[in-house]
């Protein structure tokens, strides 16, 4: 019992990694079960955020410098934002062509 309490109360690298893993799994689940393309793109962004949390927690709790982890995180975020915006523009074009954002309907139409 004391071990469990001390584990709960001493916040460390493991706690942040668990949070990142849960976030990644929620994002993955969102990509798998959503039909709306906007939700799928947002789920992909959740997965990216979890990766950034991983980097920052390693940077904070390992011997390495936090500034390097910061820079890696910033580059990941920057690329993720650009990728999301490009995906949304493509999505807008799909909407203009089809009048819906449903992945199943788009797949049916292609078939």
């Amino acid at each position, binding site marked *: 019992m004391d071990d469990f309490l001390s584990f*709960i*109360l001493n*916040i460390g690298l*493991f*706690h*942040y*990694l668990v*949070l990142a*893993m*849960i*976030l990644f*799994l*929620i994002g*993955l*689940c*969102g990509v*798998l*079960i*959503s*039909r*709306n393309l*906007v*939700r799928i793109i*947002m*789920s992909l*962004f*959740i997965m990216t*955020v979890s990766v*950034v*949390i991983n980097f*920052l*927690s*390693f*940077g*904070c709790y*390992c*011997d*390495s*410098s*936090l*500034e*390097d*982890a*910061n*820079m890696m*995180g*910033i*580059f990941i*975020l*920057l690329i993720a*934002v*650009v990728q*999301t*915006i490009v995906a*949304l523009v493509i999505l*807008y074009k799909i*909407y203009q062509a089809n009048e819906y*954002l*449903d992945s*199943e309907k788009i797949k049916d139409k292609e078939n």
Partner: protein
Amino acid sequence: MLEEVFCFYILFFAIIVSAIGIILAPRMFLAMISFFLLICMTSLLYLTLNASYIALFQFILCGVVLGVYIFLLLKKIGRLNLKLKLVPVLKIISGAFFTVAFGVLCCLFMNEEFENSLYSIFNYITEKSSDIVDFAGHVFPLHLVILLVLISAIVIRVYLINRSEDV
């Protein structure tokens, strides 16, 4: 000490709830609110990791710029009140199965490799990168990248406008 623990767990659950809200919110605008909350909460989490620069960066770039961009896009196409639609049950079950399998694999990997490999890989990368270039050396190319992205966006935009006029 206790405040730090309290703060971490509040952020922990807030982030997970807002992430679940994004994929399971009944209406699209609720998913947007969840998305904004997720960005705010993760920015606060970065502050607990002493990463204030990236927290501000994420809040401005993702929370304000990207959030407003998605909101305006949804408003433009009139899909802010769109109802939640999920894939068929069979696909949900198979998706959940694969997600759980992936989670178990992640846990096994962490259990096996946590003590040495992940540390050593991360330290290897940061040692190699921090030997030569310091923080300012990283920031300067970032500005160049942003400038190049903007210039290329303008060039592509002008090219596409000219092309559409030709057509």
